[in-house]
């Protein structure tokens, strides 16, 4: 009301409105299990150039970015000794429950990473120094396969000539080469990806990594000898079964495997948003160099 007064109430009208709403609810409820949503995405072809259609916006539904191994919920990713039990590290404290770590079943086959002794030690150190060391905190490129199980979607663009993956996190990208150009001429964060189809499975071999990216926020790491073989296998139009075999003789005693499903965003307005976080970490990384630092 323009004058700010409360509108007059007509009791009869309220009763009528409630009845109509109630009747509508019954009709809707009865038909619910058989009714398609009012809005859906346009039909998409099942195949692209004879291969399963990988186009879409995909996302994992797990907590592996916290820790690829099984883990129970805990108060924070980095803890410090407390008077009775460990307590969250000071910089995380203010987040309260938001800074806590949700539990997860893990995505590693056998729930064990076959670290060499030195590498196992480094993982523990990484985890203890998570705030200083995790490249995700500085918005660095995520590497593979970590990019595929961060809590943000990615878009696969699949045509008869190309397969390209654009990630929301940090605007990371991968052009999956369909012809092997030979060894990568230079190390990189996202590696060099070469894809081939084995039946209906898209197999991507990724090499040419640097040693800077991590597998998760628990300090799991690798060297620049890392080789990842990914397998994308459709399980219906909206699901992919994803496997990544990890080989790195400088870090692990034998190859090991991660696996989890990827889900396609089926909402009609699905689109890849931006998470260009470089801007978001400027205070963290450069704040101390301001003329008058704001952060003590």
């Amino acid at each position, binding site marked *: 009301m323009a004058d700010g007064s409360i509108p007059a109430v007509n009791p009869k009208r309220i009763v009528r409105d409630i009845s109509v709403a109630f009747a509508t609810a019954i009709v809707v409820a009865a038909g619910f299990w058989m009714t398609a949503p009012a809005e859906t995405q346009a039909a998409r072809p099942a195949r692209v150039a004879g291969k399963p259609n990988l186009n879409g916006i995909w996302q994992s539904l797990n907590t592996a970015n916290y820790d690829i191994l099984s883990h129970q919920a805990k108060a924070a990713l980095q803890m410090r000794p407390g008077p009775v039990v460990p307590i969250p590290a000071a910089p995380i404290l203010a987040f309260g429950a938001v800074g806590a770590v949700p539990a997860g079943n893990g995505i590693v086959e056998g729930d064990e990473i076959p670290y060499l002794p030195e590498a196992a030690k480094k993982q523990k150190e990484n985890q203890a120094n998570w705030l200083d060391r995790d490249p995700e905190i500085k918005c660095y490129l995520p590497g593979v396969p970590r990019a595929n199980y961060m809590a943000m979607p990615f878009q696969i663009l699949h045509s008869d000539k190309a397969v390209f993956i654009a990630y929301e996190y940090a605007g990371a990208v991968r052009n999956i080469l369909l012809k092997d150009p030979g060894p990568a001429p230079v190390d*990189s964060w996202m590696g060099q990806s070469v894809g081939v189809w084995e039946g209906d499975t898209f197999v991507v071999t990724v090499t040419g990594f640097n040693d800077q990216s991590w597998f998760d926020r628990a300090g799991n790491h690798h060297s620049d000898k890392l080789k990842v073989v990914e397998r994308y296998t459709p399980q219906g139009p909206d699901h992919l079964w994803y496997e990544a075999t990890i080989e790195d003789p400088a870090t692990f005693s034998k190859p090991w495997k991660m696996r989890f499903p990827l889900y396609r965003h089926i909402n009609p307005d699905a689109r890849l948003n931006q998470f260009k976080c470089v801007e978001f970490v400027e205070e963290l990384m*450069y704040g101390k160099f301001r003329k008058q630092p704001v952060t003590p």
Partner: protein
Amino acid sequence: MRNTLVGFALAALAATSLAAQTKPAAARTSDGKPDLQGIWTNATITPLERPQNVKELVLSEEAAARMEKAVIDRRDRLNEPSDPNRTAPPQGGDGSTGAAGNVGGYNNFWLDPGDRVAVVDGQRRSSLIIDPPDGRLPALTAEARARQAARAKTAMGRGQYDHPEYRPLAERCLLSFGPTTPLVPNYFYNNNLQIVQTPDHVMILMEMVHDARIVRIGGKHVPRHIRPWMGDSIGHWEGDTLVVDTTNFPPQQNFRGSSENLHVVERFRRADANTINYRFTVDDPTTFTAPFTGEIPFRAMNELIYEYACHEGNYALANVLSGARNEEKRLGTKQEK
């Protein structure tokens, strides 16, 4: 990190070799659209704006050849081996400006601005801008002039090294130092892009800074308050031309002084087996007194684009800022004496 510099070098070299004339003509995708896919370069020596002393849009064959020869001669001269007996640059730099200023960074080895005049439909062009007919940017509106003056005044009243936010977007690794929307060359290096095309989306990857602009075919623009870097792009086909409409630019990103009301319409048309004719129209009534239109040939490359991990190797921003703090300390100490 050890390979970051090598990566830069490779990326800079990627544009040097152009595709052989082997691509089939009039390629089409399986859904019957002209196939825009591949890796392309928009590098050219034709400037965005026509030089004041040039009247015509179309250059004669001789004039174009002279321009190209001048660029190649200069490049060859700069690529000559350095004198091994040369002395070190003077302390504090040689006083020159630009990216190579003072300390002698970025010699010609790093640069790859192209060496060819832009050719569109057989015409050798003196400017990328074709409209207005004089090939020059339209005059700024009074509002835009006031905005620029205000910006300049603000910039004068503060130290350009006081805060990271005062540094250019490219130095902060937020965007390329060249234009990103529209796809105008930067006349420096890495003028490379990749297009991947599906029935629903066209993805345009710019080498710098691994920025993928994903055009939603038949989509609607995002709400006004959503302001993605490079803007929000939707597209449709007009016959054999892909038309991309981009709005919702963030206020920090501008093209030639534009505001957040910038509206860019791009038209991609396959000209031949090795060329896309790219046409862009820029409209921002709060900045320019008229819209303007330019054309750029994208030429096919037979090279890959490598990762441009800018932020991850950005030692410069920290050093620029901490250098300024050290300088202040040094000057402060001097004044106290």
